[in-house]
């Protein structure tokens, strides 16, 4: 049975938000950090509270900490040592493994997340900009009372119009394929792969291989918590649209090029089920838009090229042990939309997302190194993920086609990493435990 009263809402639910803000903070001293936390934790919804009040609530708050942040709050060295190595090292130290090299290297990150002084993140999702402004003002008041909590940076999230479905700045429909945790009460859509054991996403539960690994100590800190990889990905919309124009003569051809990079039409319709032309009704239908495989339906990639984003991020029936590699994705777009036909304005826009999993090394880092950035994924020889892979202009992209495949050389980078970090997302009891550290037991 999942402890819905203890698990932070973001793990199990998605807030119906159009706006948001991420606040990255650093603690100058433990006492001040804990005082700030004591107040702020009262605003954090558990999964149960979120579900019960989602219709009337207008904002949702999540709190998470880096390993340095746990230390800064006063967690002792013996406990800190029990956390997994990759979390202790942090995303910056793992840059080469993640493919964060060249233009994506942490030295180019813009938001202070590469700093060892990054201690915590406050994630605010709000129904609208007005509610966000109210919450920001309230948090600013709290910060004014706690000078030892310093804001390293903030990022405002804005849904991209039209608002009737979630999509990124490139126009791709998002949130189509999410794993469903056994016991969560949710039901997987057809093709989404069945229920996954809770231990794959939440610490303290059996996972797909058995009882689960040893918990970081003390258990009150780790149980019902999990790990979270943050990625701020700039989307180069102007470059992306130029590429489509370069490789497609007509709007229809350009749509097909976009689909051949993603594996889905921008409407969300999967190429496996709609190989020739777009089918927006299919794209919008959750009962059908994820119901496909590759092994039998498209083994050679004639519909979905072998190196597409969706084939790399979820190889479905063409990879072993898929249930051990699933991840929960949350997040939102940031920056203003670039109007169709407008030249690139140099303003940063993109996706700021969280990948939530019980093991960063086995789930997130595996996906980054073996699926996203392995040049030889599916024996492709010289490719990386065309959407989020590390592209330096020297790689290619192959689109299988009879009689002869199309090969694009010198694929440009459509995205760049602009920030990132590993966080621990504690349960609510753990948040209270952290806030009370150093206080004499009553």
């Amino acid at each position, binding site marked *: 049975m999942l402890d819905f009263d203890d698990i932070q809402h973001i793990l199990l639910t998605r807030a119906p938000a159009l706006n948001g803000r991420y606040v990255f903070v650093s603690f100058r001293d433990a006492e001040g950090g804990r005082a700030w936390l004591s107040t702020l934790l009262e605003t954090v919804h558990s999964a149960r509270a979120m579900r019960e009040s989602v219709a009337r609530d207008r904002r949702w708050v999540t709190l998470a900490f880096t390993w340095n942040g746990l230390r800064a709050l006063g967690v002792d060295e013996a406990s800190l040592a029990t956390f*997994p190595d990759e979390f202790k090292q942090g995303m910056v130290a793992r840059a080469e493994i993640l493919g964060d090299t060249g233009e994506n290297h942490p030295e180019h990150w813009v938001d202070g997340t590469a700093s060892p002084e990054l201690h915590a993140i406050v994630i605010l999702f709000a129904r609208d900009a007005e509610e966000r402004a109210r919450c920001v003002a309230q948090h600013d008041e709290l910060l004014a009372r706690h000078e030892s909590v310093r804001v390293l940076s903030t990022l405002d999230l804005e849904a991209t119009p039209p608002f009737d479905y979630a999509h990124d700045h490139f126009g791709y429909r998002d949130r189509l394929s999410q794993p469903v945790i056994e016991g969560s009460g949710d039901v997987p859509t057809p093709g989404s792969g069945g229920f996954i054991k809770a231990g794959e996403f939440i610490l303290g539960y059996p996972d797909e291989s058995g009882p689960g690994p040893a918990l970081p100590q003390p258990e009150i800190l780790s149980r019902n918590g999990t790990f979270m990889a943050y990625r701020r990905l700039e989307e180069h919309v102007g470059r992306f649209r130029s590429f489509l124009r370069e490789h497609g003569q007509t709007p229809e051809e350009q749509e097909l090029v976009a689909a051949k990079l993603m594996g889905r039409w921008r409407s969300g319709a999967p190429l496996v089920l709609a190989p020739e032309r777009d089918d927006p009704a299919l794209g919008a239908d959750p009962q059908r838009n994820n119901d496909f495989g590759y092994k039998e339906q498209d083994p050679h990639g004639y519909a979905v090229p072998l190196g597409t984003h969706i084939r790399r991020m979820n190889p479905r029936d063409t990879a072993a*042990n898929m249930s051990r590699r699933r991840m929960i994705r949350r997040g939102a777009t940031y920056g203003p939309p670039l109007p169709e036909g407008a030249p690139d304005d140099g303003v940063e826009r993109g996706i700021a997302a969280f990948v939530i999993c019980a093991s960063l090394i086995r789930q997130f880092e595996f996906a980054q*190194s073996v699926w996203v950035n392995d040049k*030889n994924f599916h024996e492709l020889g010289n490719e990386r993920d065309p959407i989020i892979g590390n592209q330096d202009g020297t790689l290619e992209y192959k689109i299988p086609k009879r009689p002869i495949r199309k090969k694009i050389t010198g694929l440009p980078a459509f995205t760049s990493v602009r920030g990132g970090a590993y966080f621990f997302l504690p349960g609510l009891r753990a948040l209270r435990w952290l806030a009370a550290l150093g206080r004499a037991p009553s």
Partner: protein
Amino acid sequence: MSNTSKKPDWSKPAAMALPKGGYFPNRVEQGRYGPIFPKTPANYGFTIIAKIIPGREPAFYEYAQRIEKAVADAPDCLAVLKLHYLRWVLFPIKGETYFMYQGIFDTDFDKYTEDAVAIFTSTGLRTVFENLEGFPEDWQTNPAAFARFVREHQCPSFLEYGEYPFVSADEIKKALALKASFSTMLDQMQ
């Protein structure tokens, strides 16, 4: 990440001398569980040498029978490891028995460490390692400990040779399938 973008000529046999320790100091690639041994004309590989727990030899011969059956029953049970060959050897040093496990494959071992652990559990490959001195008791839930044991007992090559360098098992299988298709085509042309 593997750097496999280079396309060496498979028709030209090649040898590669490797520095002591197995890594080229100025280009060590980092994997999730530590540094990755370089790809050579004989692709990736490992040579694990470890002392067996005294008196456990029979377990190794039982294990051989079990693996033969596991592969016969499910020929693709090891597919994820992208193997060419595996060799298992027992040999004595000063009256004590040692075990050598040598594999040649197409991916760096780091990539599929967790999958290897899963295969060890599901196929019974596990039993042989459990008869080695120092093998971590919690290996099933601790891939890092498993990877550490493998790394600590890895004896890197100082020289490797490939008659058809850098060619993957998948490429060889594709070439053989193509050859078979051509034979069929020629038969149909008669």
